[in-house]
Structure formats: structure tokens, C-alpha cells
């Protein structure tokens, strides 16, 4: 099967810090892949390069065979890669439904001068999408009034609007309490399933990783330390030593 995303020899340095050291990775369609690694291992840098926020110093990023390594975040989004953020990036003075409406209007190159709620049923679509995440009741509330966990879900819902080929989630359960993390992740996986076949999520919580990922890629100092199914990778001696902290 041809990979959705293919990364070859990706390099990125910030001064003396090596954030990506010849990374090569294929992501086939339909997988749920978790990126793990200690702080500074290069996970978010990888996400930032794939989504066009950072330009790689070297190497290539191919989406369905087309090089996207020099494209802007807008262009990458239009080609089919969406992302959510570790710290939710929302329009906090707007309501939850308005945030989704902005995301929906971004899908079309032309923005309507019709009233927001009336424009091609986009208001209804926004509320429907919020409903899928169990957030229909907060549709008319300003984001500034909402809790961190709810903001996280809205952030993910916004990334989902384009029905992306590849959805990148940066720590979807960070800031969510231990009691709620599985419920939150269940909700995300359930809501995302109809629109995003391929998901890559950065995660620090190994319980989440082992429960939801089909495949795990462990990062260490800008390199891939291990890549495989969770049961193998999480038992890997190097991974336990440098990533999960299971070996001293």
C-alpha cells in the first residue's frame, strides 16, 4: 500500500540543538500512529515541519507522492493535512460554533457575505460537528468561558472540518485529568473516525498509547529510536531507558 505521508532524511537544527536528524518514516493510510519521546526529542518539530510551520533544513516530505516540504501551513492544510495543538489555538472571543464556522468557511476558497448562520448551512454543520464531540450544549458560549478540556476538543473538531487525509493531534489528552483521559480519547477517536482515516498523535501517556495506537514511533534526540506495534516498542530496552523511563 502506498503511504499517505512519506518522509525521507528530514533534517532540522536550532543552533546546536538537533531536532530532526535524518528522519525517515512512512505513514500508510488507515493507521493510528503515536509519536512518543521525552521533551525535546523532536516530536512537535516533526509535526511542525509536516504541517508547513517549519521548513526542514534537508530531506523531503511527500504527501501522496507530492513534495510539500516548502509549502505554507495554508497550502498544506488545503492539500489534506490538518492538525490540532498542544495548547489549543482557538479564536477565544468567538463562540464555539463561530470557531467551527470559521474552520468550515476556510474549506472553501470563497467566503460568503451571507449571514454567518445562513451561509450554506454552515452554522448547522458547525453545531453538528460539535455534537459529535458531545459539545452541542456549548455551541453559543464564548470559548474564553470554556474549560481547557473542552477547548482541546474544539481544537480537534476544527482540524477535522476538512476531512483530512492525515490528522495530526499534538497531545490530545494533555491537561485532561487521569479520570477523564480515556473518556476524552474515546470521544476523540469516535468523533474523528468518519472523517479522518489516518491519525498521528503525539502522546506522553503510555496507557493512552498502548490502548489507542496501531503503531508507535519513539523519538530520541531527533532520531527514531524504535518503530513498531505498541506491545513491542514499549518493551524495547532503549525506549524504556530513554523515553518511558522504565529502566534505570
Amino acid at each position, binding site marked *: 500500500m502506498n503511504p499517505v505521508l512519506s518522509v525521507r532524511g528530514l533534517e532540522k537544527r536550532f543552533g546546536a540543538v538537533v531536532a530532526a536528524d535524518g528522519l525517515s518514516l512512512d505513514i500508510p493510510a488507515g493507521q493510528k500512529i503515536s509519536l512518543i519521546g521525552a521533551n525535546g526529542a523532536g516530536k512537535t518539530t516533526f509535526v511542525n515541519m509536516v504541517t508547513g510551520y517549519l521548513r526542514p533544513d534537508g530531506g523531503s516530505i511527500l504527501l501522496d507522492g507530492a513534495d510539500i516540504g516548502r509549502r505554507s501551513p495554508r497550502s498544506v492544510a488545503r492539500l489534506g493535512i490538518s492538525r490540532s495543538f498542544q495548547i489549543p489555538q482557538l479564536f477565544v472571543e*468567538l463562540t464555539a460554533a463561530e470557531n467551527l464556522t*470559521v474552520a468550515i468557511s476556510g474549506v472553501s476558497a470563497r467566503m460568503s457575505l451571507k449571514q454567518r448562520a445562513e451561509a450554506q448551512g454552515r452554522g448547522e454543520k458547525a453545531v453538528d460537528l460539535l455534537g459529535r464531540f458531545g459539545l452541542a450544549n456549548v455551541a453559543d458560549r464564548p470559548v474564553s468561558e470554556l474549560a481547557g478540556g473542552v477547548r482541546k476538543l474544539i481544537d480537534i473538531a476544527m482540524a477535522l472540518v476538512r476531512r483530512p487525509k492525515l490528522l495530526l493531534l499534538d497531545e490530545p489528552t494533555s491537561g485532561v485529568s487521569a479520570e477523564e483521559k480515556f473518556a476524552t480519547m474515546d470521544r476523540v477517536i469516535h468523533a474523528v473516525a468518519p472523517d479522518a482515516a489516518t491519525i498521528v498523535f503525539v502522546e506522553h501517556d503510555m496507557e493512552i498509547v498502548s490502548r489507542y495506537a496501531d503503531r508507535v514511533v519513539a523519538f530520541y534526540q531527533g532520531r527514531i529510536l524504535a518503530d513498531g506495534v505498541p506491545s513491542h516498542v514499549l518493551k524495547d530496552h532503549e525506549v524504556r531507558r530513554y523515553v518511558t523511563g522504565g529502566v534505570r
Partner: protein
Amino acid sequence: MKKDLHPLVMIALVAAATLFGRALPTWTLSLATVAASNALIALGIVVLARTGNVSFGQGLFFAAGGYGVALIANAWGLTDAVTQVVIGAACGGLLGLVIGPLIARYSGIFFGMLTLALSMVFYGALVKSTMLGGSDGFNVGRPTLFGMSFTDPREADFMLYAVSVIVTGFAGIGATILFRSEFGLASLAVRENNLRAEYLGISANRVISINFLIAAIFAGASGAFALMAQRHIDPQFAYWTTSGEFVFIAVLAGNQSVAAVFVASMALELVRSFSNLYLPNTWQLVLGVFLLGVILFLPRGIGSLWISKRHGRSTSKAALAIEEGAAQ
């Protein structure tokens, strides 16, 4: 939930405001004409401010509109008021079309300073241009309307009042539709977090350029009104204090309501006129105290008196947050 006014109701209000001019004393008529004209350019600043950018150099487009109309009027004898407004709007718009995309990539104070610098370059060029009358400028003839001349000063004032109120009123209706639209929502999104907007596939530069173009068109049309009212134009149209006055009105109004721009512009003209009348040596002080009072008690502008308050100002810094994420 508060129901928005239907555009037909707004058109009726514009018609009523126009007819109300018949009942106004002559001195108020001139005042209202100036207020409507200033409101038009301030409305453009408010439109632009909804993307998070403030232009300190709208005098550039104001002067471009005024000079464009004055040159065409003198060269071809075009005196029709409506045609002059269209020409003024076109001159401002053409300039905005060129400048907007060039400065849309800048934001905050850099954006403001660039607009100011461009207007002062234009001012300098006008002062040095002997062909355009240098610092003295030049005069134009009395405007007409659809072939009718107005020799009676009261009728001439009313004609100018009516045209300015109708044009500004329709610009206000257009701006209201814009504010309520998807495009208006995208403008707010760009103001709050332009990087996130880009990640959603929205071109922040395009949104800012379009809003900039609208502001330039309004400023050009306003320049045409100022020219018709004074029948004289000089480089002062492009001077920074002229631009500052329009920003003053926009600050008074806030960016939540179109009607607030008209109220703020009229309030400013009234305060200025009465303080000038009763305190001729200290009227600027009164104006300053008035602005301070509004900023102190209505920090979101006069419009916040009747627009429900949105909660919390945006403090998100998209790029910073992403960098923080990268450090994790």
C-alpha cells in the same frame, strides 16, 4: 437574543436621517455633513481594525480621493456630486489595491507606522508639487447634482448633507452586512489568531487586503466630500494630524457597532464646536478630556453602550504557543 436590524429597516433609517436634514438649522447641517463624511473614513478604520490592524495613515487615501476628484473636476468640468464621490472612492480604492497586499504581511505597530509613513511621503510629494499648488493647494467649483445647480446656500448645504448621509448610510449598511457575514467572522479570526486561520486554509493576507481596500474606498469617498464642502484642497488632507483625527473617531466608537461610528463622529463634532465656541483657547483640552473619559468609562468604545460585551480579550499568541509546543 438580540435581533439584528433588517437591511430594509436600515435603509428606512437612512431615508429618515436624510429627510430630517430639512428640519435642521443651517449650522447643524454643515456640522452633520462633516460628521457623516468623517464617519465614513472612520468606518473604514473600524473595518480594518477588525483584522487587528489600525491605519494611522488614512489621510493618504483621503487626499488621493480629494486630489483625484479636484483634478478631474477642474480638467473636465465634472461637478456632479455623486460622480465626484464615485471618482474619489475609485482613486482611494486603486491606491488601496496597490498598497494593501504589500503591507498586509505586517501587523501591529509596524502596520500602523507603515501606513503613517506612506501618508507622510504622499504629503511631502504634494507640498513639493507646484503643479498641484504646493502647500497652498487649489480651489474647485461648486458641486451640482444630476445637472441641478444650487445657488441658495441653504439648498446647497442640504444637497451636500443629503448626499453625504445617503452615501455614508449605505456604506454603513454594507459594513453591517460585512460584519455579520462569514467574511466578517474570518476577519475577527485573523485578528485573534492569524496563524490558526492559516492552518484552517484562510489567507490572512487576503482577508487583511480586502478590508484594507474597503477602508481605502471609504477614505477616498470621504476625501471627495471634504473637497465638496470646502471647495478647496491642500496637502493638509494627507497630514498625520488629519489621519489622527479619524483614528480618534474610531477609538471613540470602538469596533463593535457601525452605528457607534456615526454617533462618535457627531459627538466629536459637537464637542469640538461647542468647546470652540465657549472655550476658544482651551477647546483642545476639552476634546482631550472627552476622549479620556470615553477610554476610562467605555474602554470598548461608545458602541459598548448597546452591544453586549464579548467575554475576555484574546491573549493567545499563536506562534509563541507553537514554539512552546516544540520545546516539549
